């Protein structure tokens, strides 16, 4: 089983790279040679990756959320999976390379550093923790997707305003579509983060004797959640459009990253497992 896992661990970044190159080729060449088949390549990659994650769960008897590098491979999967769902729903196929690149990056780091022999604290084997972490990761994947679409929006916005009609103009979908993709990603991310927070709020106090509501990670995540709530609320109530929505999404994402870095690196938290 370990040898199969090691083989898959080597294969997965390679196939992510292949899928990334296929999406890039279609984007830059304008030939649409892989217009339909690239989706199949992505599906196969996700299938292999899902198989690897299940195999790892069975082998080590816990979900792959107990080390940083297990989290990274899960993050790689969830980013591409979210994109795949979005591509199926919207049939917008030209933006995959910007998303799959992040999956490739996270998977490479995971594949290099992931371990096979380590001691797992009993608390990390809990199923509630699995649900809590997976929903949080999917939530953050939604925010990442939203930020990527936000950057693409700003690029096209700038190109259109300065009358540059090059590759960005030709290959990206319209500003309204990019705005919608960014907004829907944020909403999905927000819902999943809310689920993660609810599960955490119920389960964490009973699992950790030193639990505190003032824990830096809890406070940071709550602030991120509030920031997105304000943004989504403003979009719905005040009818925000275009650039304003995108700027909100990017500020939210920057806030998320800063919050994660500060609370994970500098905060003294019970919430740090790795």
């Amino acid at each position, binding site marked *: 089983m370990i040898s199969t896992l090691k083989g898959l661990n080597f294969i997965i970044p390679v196939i992510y790279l292949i899928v990334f190159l296929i999406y890039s080729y279609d984007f830059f060449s304008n030939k649409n040679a892989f217009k339909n088949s690239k989706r199949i390549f992505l599906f196969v990659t996700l299938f292999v990756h899902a198989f690897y994650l299940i195999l790892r769960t069975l082998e080590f008897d816990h979900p792959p959320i107990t080390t940083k590098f297990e989290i990274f491979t899960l993050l790689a999967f969830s980013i591409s999976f979210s994109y795949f769902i979005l591509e199926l729903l919207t049939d917008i196929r030209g933006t995959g390379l910007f998303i799959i690149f992040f999956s490739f990056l996270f998977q490479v780091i995971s594949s290099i550093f992931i371990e096979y022999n380590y001691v797992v604290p009993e608390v990390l084997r809990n199923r509630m923790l699995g649900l809590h972490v997976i929903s949080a990761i999917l939530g953050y994947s939604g925010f990442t997707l939203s930020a990527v679409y936000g950057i693409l929006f700003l690029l096209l916005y700038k190109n*259109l305003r300065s*009358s540059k*009609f090059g590759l960005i103009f030709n290959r*990206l*979908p319209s500003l*309204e*579509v990019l705005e919608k993709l960014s907004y829907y990603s944020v909403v999905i991310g927000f819902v999943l983060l809310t689920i993660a927070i609810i599960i955490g709020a119920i389960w964490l106090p009973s699992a950790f004797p030193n639990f505190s509501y003032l824990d830096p990670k809890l406070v940071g995540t709550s602030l991120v959640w509030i920031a997105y709530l304000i943004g989504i609320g403003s979009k719905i109530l005040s009818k925000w459009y*275009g*650039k304003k929505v995108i700027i909100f999404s990017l500020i939210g994402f920057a806030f998320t990253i800063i919050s994660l870095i500060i609370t994970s690196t500098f905060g003294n938290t019970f919430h740090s497992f790795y």
Partner: protein
Amino acid sequence: MNLIGISINHRTAPINVLESLHLSREEIIEFIPKLKKEFSEGVIISTCNRTEIFCISKNQTIDANIIIQKLLEFKPVSNIRDENFTRYFSCGAIKHIFSVASGIDSLVIGDSQILGQVKEAFELSEDLDFAGTIIKRIFNTALKVGKRAIKETAIGEGAVTVSYAAVQVLEKIFANLEKKSALVIGAGETGELAAIHLKDKGIGKISISNRTLQRAEILANKVNGSVVPFESLKENIHNYDVVISATSSPDYILSKLDIQEAMKRRKGTPLVLMDIAVPRDIDPEVKNIENVFYHDMDSLKVIVDKNISKRKAEIPKVEKIIMEEMIEFFSWYNTLEVVPVIKSLREFFEEIKNDELEKIKNKVTAEDYVKIEDMTRRLIGRLLHNPTVKLRQLAESGINIEEMAAHTFIVKELFSLNKDKSNGNDINQKKEKN
């Protein structure tokens, strides 16, 4: 092949000459009977950018000047010169017809209208009984070339007019034009073109504003739109997502302040301003207002120029299609050369068979006669199968015409075939095949 043709087009003659020589449908109907006196088949293509006449001579005369002479007799034009006409013959004529149908010979490269015009011209010729076997084959192949060029290359892709480029930019800003509204300022030719493009793209609501109200109303009716009085133009800007301005006003119609006011009332929702007027109608300073997308002739021309370059780069691909179809056409055409020979050969064998059968008719029983007749028929069929197939193959390969001529000559000499019947150059005999 006795196909000859003449062309006067945007490359060879100025627009006023082209206009003078343009033939309407009625004129073509009147002119074709005059051509029929000299030619057995033909087609006349006449558009605003070209007049082209292709005919097949009844005899061996290969002189395109006859067509020019007849055309000028029918429609005298004083300021025309001999060099305004290009003359074509046989293979060159076919290549030119295919180039015209594919749009690579058009003023706007890849123009999709020309294929429809070629089809219309061919259909008219058919209706007037002026399209025979060869013309039918040529023009059916030309239409195939045109369709293949559109399907297999990017010769017709991208906006190549400023008004269409403006619509292309809109599609990069808005996801669904059906939910958007547009105001076209100016009901002149450019404004009209822009309004029609917007309507074709399915814009939700369209309004026209023009100094002369009557002209605005005419255009509004044409595009199922409404009219905004020119005097209340500025107060209405905020109601539209797209404003296209194409007036001949020497001064700005819309200032930065006007647009700032409109944006306040739109609560920041994006506004697209397309200034396709020369001189400009909208103060270019508006481009600095947030969520305003302003484009003028210069910026839109960038798109047009890029698309024209892209289309030009597709020409070799179209030429390859033309070459493929020419090879196929001449393969078919060359088979026409051997058909009379094959026919004469079969007739020669049939004659011998009949002679011999006649000789034994009274010497055998009726039952045996039927058997012998059947046997001789099969015998001739088997004997002639290989020579017939070989001759057809040689003709269809179309590679070595001389080799094919040598083979048909040997066959004719070996069997002393009737030379009148087997004259491969007789166009009328070729038609008998079909």
